[in-house]
Protein backbone atom coordinates (compact mmCIF):
# COMPACT_ATOMS: atom_id res chain seq x y z
CA UNK A 1 0.00 0.00 0.00
CA UNK A 2 1.53 3.31 -1.10
CA UNK A 3 0.70 6.85 0.02
CA UNK A 4 -1.08 7.43 -3.31
CA UNK A 5 -3.21 4.31 -2.82
CA UNK A 6 -4.09 5.45 0.69
CA UNK A 7 -5.06 8.88 -0.66
CA UNK A 8 -7.26 7.25 -3.31
CA UNK A 9 -8.94 5.00 -0.76
CA UNK A 10 -9.50 8.04 1.48
CA UNK A 11 -11.08 9.97 -1.40
CA UNK A 12 -13.30 7.01 -2.24
CA UNK A 13 -14.47 6.94 1.38
CA UNK A 14 -15.30 10.66 1.27
CA UNK A 15 -17.22 10.10 -1.97
CA UNK A 16 -19.21 7.23 -0.48
CA UNK A 17 -20.18 9.25 2.59
CA UNK A 18 -21.18 12.26 0.48
CA UNK A 19 -23.30 10.06 -1.81
CA UNK A 20 -25.03 8.56 1.24
CA UNK A 21 -25.67 12.01 2.67
CA UNK A 22 -27.05 13.29 -0.61
CA UNK A 23 -29.41 10.31 -0.71
CA UNK A 24 -30.51 10.95 2.86
CA UNK A 25 -31.17 14.63 2.18
CA UNK A 26 -33.13 13.83 -0.99
CA UNK A 27 -35.34 11.60 1.13
CA UNK A 28 -35.94 14.43 3.60
CA UNK A 29 -36.73 16.79 0.72
CA UNK A 30 -39.08 14.23 -0.84
CA UNK A 31 -41.00 13.92 2.45
CA UNK A 32 -41.15 17.71 2.83
CA UNK A 33 -42.30 17.97 -0.79
CA UNK A 34 -45.09 15.39 -0.38
CA UNK A 35 -46.21 16.74 3.01
CA UNK A 36 -46.37 20.33 1.75
CA UNK A 37 -48.15 19.04 -1.35
CA UNK A 38 -50.71 17.19 0.73
CA UNK A 39 -51.39 20.34 2.79
CA UNK A 40 -51.88 22.22 -0.47
CA UNK A 41 -54.22 19.50 -1.75
CA UNK A 42 -56.26 19.57 1.46
CA UNK A 43 -56.51 23.36 1.41
CA UNK A 44 -57.65 23.45 -2.19
CA UNK A 45 -60.20 20.70 -1.55
CA UNK A 46 -61.62 22.10 1.66
CA UNK A 47 -61.83 25.76 0.59
CA UNK A 48 -62.81 27.81 3.60
CA UNK A 49 -63.94 24.79 5.60
CA UNK A 50 -60.65 23.71 7.15
CA UNK A 51 -62.09 22.21 10.33
CA UNK A 52 -62.39 18.69 8.92
CA UNK A 53 -58.74 18.57 7.89
CA UNK A 54 -57.08 20.64 10.59
CA UNK A 55 -55.71 17.59 12.42
CA UNK A 56 -54.19 16.14 9.27
CA UNK A 57 -52.77 19.51 8.22
CA UNK A 58 -51.22 19.92 11.67
CA UNK A 59 -49.67 16.46 11.40
CA UNK A 60 -48.19 17.25 7.99
CA UNK A 61 -46.77 20.56 9.21
CA UNK A 62 -45.14 18.76 12.16
CA UNK A 63 -43.66 16.23 9.77
CA UNK A 64 -42.25 19.04 7.62
CA UNK A 65 -40.68 20.72 10.67
CA UNK A 66 -39.23 17.40 11.86
CA UNK A 67 -37.66 16.67 8.47
CA UNK A 68 -36.29 20.21 8.13
CA UNK A 69 -34.59 19.66 11.52
CA UNK A 70 -33.12 16.35 10.41
CA UNK A 71 -31.88 17.74 7.09
CA UNK A 72 -30.43 20.73 8.92
CA UNK A 73 -28.59 18.51 11.39
CA UNK A 74 -27.26 16.37 8.56
CA UNK A 75 -26.06 19.47 6.71
CA UNK A 76 -24.32 20.65 9.89
CA UNK A 77 -22.51 17.30 10.12
CA UNK A 78 -21.61 17.52 6.45
CA UNK A 79 -20.17 20.99 6.91
CA UNK A 80 -18.03 19.81 9.84
CA UNK A 81 -17.00 16.71 7.93
CA UNK A 82 -15.88 18.83 4.95
CA UNK A 83 -13.90 21.22 7.16
CA UNK A 84 -11.99 18.30 8.69
CA UNK A 85 -10.05 18.35 5.43
CA UNK A 86 -8.99 22.01 5.75
CA UNK A 87 -5.75 20.99 7.46
CA UNK A 88 -4.20 17.54 7.53
CA UNK A 89 -3.51 17.85 11.26
CA UNK A 90 -5.57 19.77 13.79
CA UNK A 91 -6.84 19.75 17.32
CA UNK A 92 -10.28 18.11 17.55
CA UNK A 93 -12.83 16.44 19.77
CA UNK A 94 -12.93 12.69 19.14
CA UNK A 95 -16.55 12.64 20.29
CA UNK A 96 -17.54 15.12 17.60
CA UNK A 97 -15.57 13.28 14.93
CA UNK A 98 -17.15 9.95 15.83
CA UNK A 99 -20.62 11.46 16.27
CA UNK A 100 -20.64 13.00 12.80
CA UNK A 101 -19.32 9.82 11.22
CA UNK A 102 -22.04 7.77 12.93
CA UNK A 103 -24.66 10.21 11.61
CA UNK A 104 -23.27 9.88 8.11
CA UNK A 105 -23.19 6.06 8.12
CA UNK A 106 -26.49 5.46 9.90
CA UNK A 107 -28.27 4.93 6.60
CA UNK A 108 -25.77 2.24 5.61
CA UNK A 109 -26.51 0.51 8.93
CA UNK A 110 -30.26 0.86 8.44
CA UNK A 111 -29.99 -0.78 5.02
CA UNK A 112 -28.64 -3.82 6.87
CA UNK A 113 -31.25 -3.52 9.64
CA UNK A 114 -28.47 -2.80 12.11
CA UNK A 115 -28.73 -0.14 14.82
CA UNK A 116 -25.90 2.02 16.08
CA UNK A 117 -25.95 3.16 19.72
CA UNK A 118 -23.42 5.61 21.14
CA UNK A 119 -22.05 6.45 24.56
CA UNK A 120 -19.51 9.27 24.64
CA UNK A 121 -17.40 10.22 27.65
CA UNK A 122 -17.56 14.04 27.78
CA UNK A 123 -14.28 14.17 29.76
CA UNK A 124 -11.96 12.77 27.09
CA UNK A 125 -9.11 15.06 26.06
CA UNK A 126 -8.95 16.87 22.72
CA UNK A 127 -6.39 15.35 20.38
CA UNK A 128 -3.97 16.81 17.87
CA UNK A 129 -3.97 14.40 14.95
CA UNK A 130 -5.73 13.89 11.60
CA UNK A 131 -9.50 13.85 12.17
CA UNK A 132 -10.27 13.00 8.56
CA UNK A 133 -7.88 10.05 8.54
CA UNK A 134 -9.38 8.89 11.85
CA UNK A 135 -12.83 8.91 10.24
CA UNK A 136 -11.47 6.93 7.30
CA UNK A 137 -9.81 4.35 9.58
CA UNK A 138 -12.87 4.07 11.83
CA UNK A 139 -15.14 3.54 8.81
CA UNK A 140 -12.86 0.75 7.56
CA UNK A 141 -12.97 -0.84 11.02
CA UNK A 142 -16.76 -0.65 11.22
CA UNK A 143 -17.42 -2.22 7.81
CA UNK A 144 -16.82 -5.87 8.93
CA UNK A 145 -19.75 -5.55 11.36
CA UNK A 146 -22.13 -5.32 8.40
CA UNK A 147 -21.18 -8.78 7.20
CA UNK A 148 -20.61 -10.34 10.63
CA UNK A 149 -23.88 -9.29 12.24
CA UNK A 150 -27.38 -10.48 11.48
CA UNK A 151 -30.20 -8.01 11.09
CA UNK A 152 -31.70 -6.48 14.25
CA UNK A 153 -28.25 -6.36 15.83
CA UNK A 154 -26.77 -3.29 17.49
CA UNK A 155 -23.26 -1.87 17.38
CA UNK A 156 -22.40 0.06 20.53
CA UNK A 157 -19.81 2.77 19.95
CA UNK A 158 -18.26 4.44 22.96
CA UNK A 159 -15.33 6.65 23.88
CA UNK A 160 -13.26 6.76 27.05
CA UNK A 161 -9.89 8.16 28.04
CA UNK A 162 -6.86 6.17 29.10
CA UNK A 163 -4.01 8.39 30.24
CA UNK A 164 -3.58 10.98 27.54
CA UNK A 165 -5.05 8.68 24.90
CA UNK A 166 -8.61 8.13 23.77
CA UNK A 167 -10.15 4.68 23.39
CA UNK A 168 -12.87 4.31 20.79
CA UNK A 169 -14.72 1.01 21.19
CA UNK A 170 -17.15 -0.58 18.81
CA UNK A 171 -18.80 -3.75 20.10
CA UNK A 172 -21.79 -5.80 19.09
CA UNK A 173 -24.42 -5.57 21.84
CA UNK A 174 -25.22 -8.66 23.90
CA UNK A 175 -28.55 -9.02 22.09
CA UNK A 176 -26.92 -9.07 18.65
CA UNK A 177 -26.80 -12.22 16.59
CA UNK A 178 -23.66 -13.15 14.73
CA UNK A 179 -24.11 -14.27 11.13
CA UNK A 180 -20.57 -15.52 10.73
CA UNK A 181 -17.80 -15.97 13.31
CA UNK A 182 -15.55 -12.91 13.57
CA UNK A 183 -11.95 -13.18 12.50
CA UNK A 184 -9.29 -12.83 15.13
CA UNK A 185 -7.65 -10.37 15.04
CA UNK A 186 -10.34 -8.01 13.76
CA UNK A 187 -10.33 -7.94 9.92
CA UNK A 188 -8.51 -4.83 8.70
CA UNK A 189 -7.81 -4.04 5.06
CA UNK A 190 -4.51 -2.58 3.89
CA UNK A 191 -5.65 1.03 3.59
CA UNK A 192 -7.28 1.01 7.03
CA UNK A 193 -4.12 -0.56 8.48
CA UNK A 194 -1.99 2.13 6.89
CA UNK A 195 -4.31 4.87 8.17
CA UNK A 196 -4.10 3.43 11.71
CA UNK A 197 -0.34 3.46 11.42
CA UNK A 198 -0.28 7.08 10.14
CA UNK A 199 -2.46 8.08 13.09
CA UNK A 200 -0.01 6.43 15.49
CA UNK A 201 -3.01 4.48 16.78
CA UNK A 202 -3.32 0.85 17.81
CA UNK A 203 -6.02 -1.76 17.69
CA UNK A 204 -7.01 -4.09 20.53
CA UNK A 205 -9.44 -6.94 20.88
CA UNK A 206 -12.29 -6.40 23.35
CA UNK A 207 -11.72 -7.76 26.85
CA UNK A 208 -15.00 -9.63 27.06
CA UNK A 209 -14.40 -13.28 26.12
CA UNK A 210 -17.03 -13.42 23.40
CA UNK A 211 -16.96 -9.75 22.49
CA UNK A 212 -17.33 -8.97 18.80
CA UNK A 213 -15.63 -5.74 17.87
CA UNK A 214 -12.50 -3.73 18.52
CA UNK A 215 -10.89 -0.94 20.48
CA UNK A 216 -8.96 1.77 18.72
CA UNK A 217 -6.49 3.65 20.92
CA UNK A 218 -5.37 6.99 19.62
CA UNK A 219 -3.27 9.81 21.07
CA UNK A 220 -2.06 13.18 19.95
CA UNK A 221 0.78 12.99 17.48
CA UNK A 222 4.20 14.00 18.77
CA UNK A 223 5.15 17.65 18.36
CA UNK A 224 7.61 16.67 15.60
CA UNK A 225 4.57 15.79 13.47
CA UNK A 226 3.17 19.27 13.84
CA UNK A 227 3.78 21.03 10.60
Amino acid at each position, binding site marked *: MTEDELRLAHLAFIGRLLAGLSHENK*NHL*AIINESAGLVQDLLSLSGKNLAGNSEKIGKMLNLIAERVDKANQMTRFLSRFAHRLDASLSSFSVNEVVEEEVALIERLARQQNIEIATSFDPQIPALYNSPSLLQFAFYGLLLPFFTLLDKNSTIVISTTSAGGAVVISALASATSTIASPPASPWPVDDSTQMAISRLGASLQAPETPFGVGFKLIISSLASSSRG
Partner: protein
Amino acid sequence: MKQMKVLLVDDEESFVKTLSERLKMRDLHNEVAFDGEQAVTIADGEEPDVMVLDLKMPGIDGVEVLRRVKQRYPHIQVIILTGHGTDRDEEEVRRLGAFDYLQKPVPIDDLVVRIKAAYKNKMELTMAAAAFAEAGEPEMAQEFLKGN
Protein backbone atom coordinates in the same frame (compact mmCIF):
# COMPACT_ATOMS: atom_id res chain seq x y z
CA MET B 1 -63.41 0.05 -17.35
CA LYS B 2 -60.75 -1.73 -15.28
CA GLN B 3 -59.23 0.39 -12.52
CA MET B 4 -55.48 0.84 -12.67
CA LYS B 5 -53.60 -0.77 -9.75
CA VAL B 6 -50.47 0.98 -8.55
CA LEU B 7 -48.03 -0.37 -5.97
CA LEU B 8 -45.77 2.14 -4.18
CA VAL B 9 -42.63 0.66 -2.63
CA ASP B 10 -40.39 2.69 -0.30
CA ASP B 11 -38.87 2.12 3.14
CA GLU B 12 -39.55 5.76 4.11
CA GLU B 13 -43.02 5.21 5.56
CA SER B 14 -43.86 8.91 5.94
CA PHE B 15 -43.00 9.49 2.31
CA VAL B 16 -44.87 6.57 0.83
CA LYS B 17 -48.02 7.04 2.96
CA THR B 18 -48.25 10.72 2.02
CA LEU B 19 -47.60 10.00 -1.62
CA SER B 20 -50.26 7.28 -1.54
CA GLU B 21 -52.83 9.70 -0.16
CA ARG B 22 -52.04 12.34 -2.77
CA LEU B 23 -52.34 9.83 -5.60
CA LYS B 24 -55.69 8.63 -4.22
CA MET B 25 -56.88 12.25 -4.27
CA ARG B 26 -56.07 12.12 -7.97
CA ASP B 27 -58.12 8.94 -8.40
CA LEU B 28 -55.11 6.64 -8.69
CA HIS B 29 -55.92 3.54 -6.66
CA ASN B 30 -52.76 2.28 -4.95
CA GLU B 31 -51.27 0.06 -2.29
CA VAL B 32 -48.04 0.54 -0.39
CA ALA B 33 -45.16 -1.74 0.58
CA PHE B 34 -42.37 -0.73 2.95
CA ASP B 35 -39.71 -3.18 1.81
CA GLY B 36 -38.70 -5.42 -1.05
CA GLU B 37 -40.06 -8.66 0.43
CA GLN B 38 -43.48 -7.11 0.91
CA ALA B 39 -43.42 -5.70 -2.63
CA VAL B 40 -42.67 -9.12 -4.16
CA THR B 41 -45.41 -10.75 -2.06
CA ILE B 42 -47.97 -8.14 -3.15
CA ALA B 43 -46.88 -8.49 -6.77
CA ASP B 44 -47.42 -12.27 -6.48
CA GLY B 45 -50.94 -11.81 -5.14
CA GLU B 46 -52.29 -8.65 -6.70
CA GLU B 47 -50.25 -8.18 -9.88
CA PRO B 48 -50.27 -4.38 -9.97
CA ASP B 49 -50.25 -2.65 -13.34
CA VAL B 50 -47.61 -0.15 -12.32
CA MET B 51 -45.03 -0.31 -9.55
CA VAL B 52 -43.27 2.83 -8.26
CA LEU B 53 -40.11 1.51 -6.68
CA ASP B 54 -37.31 2.94 -4.52
CA LEU B 55 -33.83 1.50 -5.08
CA LYS B 56 -32.14 1.56 -1.68
CA MET B 57 -34.11 -0.42 0.87
CA PRO B 58 -33.19 -2.81 3.68
CA GLY B 59 -33.37 -6.50 2.77
CA ILE B 60 -34.17 -7.06 -0.90
CA ASP B 61 -33.23 -3.81 -2.61
CA GLY B 62 -35.05 -2.18 -5.51
CA VAL B 63 -32.83 -3.63 -8.22
CA GLU B 64 -33.51 -7.15 -6.98
CA VAL B 65 -37.25 -6.48 -6.71
CA LEU B 66 -37.22 -5.19 -10.30
CA ARG B 67 -35.30 -8.25 -11.46
CA ARG B 68 -37.71 -10.68 -9.77
CA VAL B 69 -40.84 -8.85 -10.84
CA LYS B 70 -39.74 -8.59 -14.46
CA GLN B 71 -38.84 -12.29 -14.51
CA ARG B 72 -42.24 -13.36 -13.20
CA TYR B 73 -44.52 -10.60 -14.50
CA PRO B 74 -42.82 -8.83 -17.40
CA HIS B 75 -45.98 -6.87 -18.19
CA ILE B 76 -45.88 -5.00 -14.84
CA GLN B 77 -44.50 -1.55 -15.59
CA VAL B 78 -41.92 -0.38 -13.06
CA ILE B 79 -41.05 3.25 -12.44
CA ILE B 80 -37.94 3.77 -10.32
CA LEU B 81 -38.26 6.73 -7.93
CA THR B 82 -35.04 7.16 -6.00
CA GLY B 83 -32.94 9.64 -4.12
CA HIS B 84 -29.83 7.64 -4.92
CA GLY B 85 -29.49 8.23 -8.61
CA THR B 86 -26.33 7.49 -10.48
CA ASP B 87 -26.02 7.10 -14.25
CA ARG B 88 -24.91 3.53 -13.63
CA ASP B 89 -28.05 2.79 -11.57
CA GLU B 90 -30.23 4.21 -14.33
CA GLU B 91 -28.43 2.21 -16.99
CA GLU B 92 -28.84 -0.99 -14.99
CA VAL B 93 -32.53 -0.60 -14.17
CA ARG B 94 -33.37 0.34 -17.77
CA ARG B 95 -31.50 -2.77 -18.92
CA LEU B 96 -33.59 -4.79 -16.48
CA GLY B 97 -36.76 -3.39 -18.03
CA ALA B 98 -37.74 -0.37 -15.91
CA PHE B 99 -40.24 1.83 -17.73
CA ASP B 100 -38.91 5.07 -16.27
CA TYR B 101 -36.34 6.44 -13.86
CA LEU B 102 -37.19 9.47 -11.71
CA GLN B 103 -35.28 11.33 -9.02
CA LYS B 104 -36.75 12.37 -5.68
CA PRO B 105 -38.30 14.76 -5.01
CA VAL B 106 -40.64 14.73 -8.01
CA PRO B 107 -43.64 17.04 -8.58
CA ILE B 108 -46.82 15.01 -8.07
CA ASP B 109 -48.27 15.99 -11.46
CA ASP B 110 -45.13 14.74 -13.24
CA LEU B 111 -45.39 11.44 -11.38
CA VAL B 112 -49.07 11.09 -12.27
CA VAL B 113 -48.24 11.67 -15.95
CA ARG B 114 -45.52 9.01 -15.86
CA ILE B 115 -47.76 6.49 -14.04
CA LYS B 116 -50.51 7.00 -16.63
CA ALA B 117 -47.99 6.65 -19.45
CA ALA B 118 -46.72 3.40 -17.91
CA TYR B 119 -50.28 2.08 -17.62
CA LYS B 120 -51.04 3.05 -21.23
CA ASN B 121 -47.90 1.23 -22.32
CA LYS B 122 -48.96 -1.87 -20.41
CA MET B 123 -52.46 -1.82 -21.92
CA GLU B 124 -51.07 -1.41 -25.45
CA LEU B 125 -48.65 -4.30 -24.98
CA THR B 126 -51.41 -6.48 -23.49
CA MET B 127 -53.79 -5.69 -26.36
CA ALA B 128 -51.10 -6.37 -28.95
CA ALA B 129 -50.30 -9.66 -27.24
CA ALA B 130 -53.98 -10.62 -27.23
CA ALA B 131 -54.26 -9.82 -30.94
CA PHE B 132 -51.25 -12.02 -31.77
CA ALA B 133 -52.56 -14.82 -29.55
CA GLU B 134 -55.90 -14.67 -31.35
CA ALA B 135 -54.12 -14.74 -34.71
CA GLY B 136 -52.41 -17.99 -33.65
CA GLU B 137 -48.98 -16.48 -33.03
CA PRO B 138 -48.29 -17.28 -29.37
CA GLU B 139 -44.55 -16.55 -29.60
CA MET B 140 -45.17 -13.01 -30.80
CA ALA B 141 -47.81 -12.65 -28.10
CA GLN B 142 -45.20 -13.65 -25.49
CA GLU B 143 -42.74 -11.12 -26.90
CA PHE B 144 -45.29 -8.34 -26.44
CA LEU B 145 -46.05 -9.48 -22.91
CA LYS B 146 -42.35 -9.21 -22.16
CA GLY B 147 -42.49 -5.64 -23.41
CA ASN B 148 -40.24 -6.29 -26.43
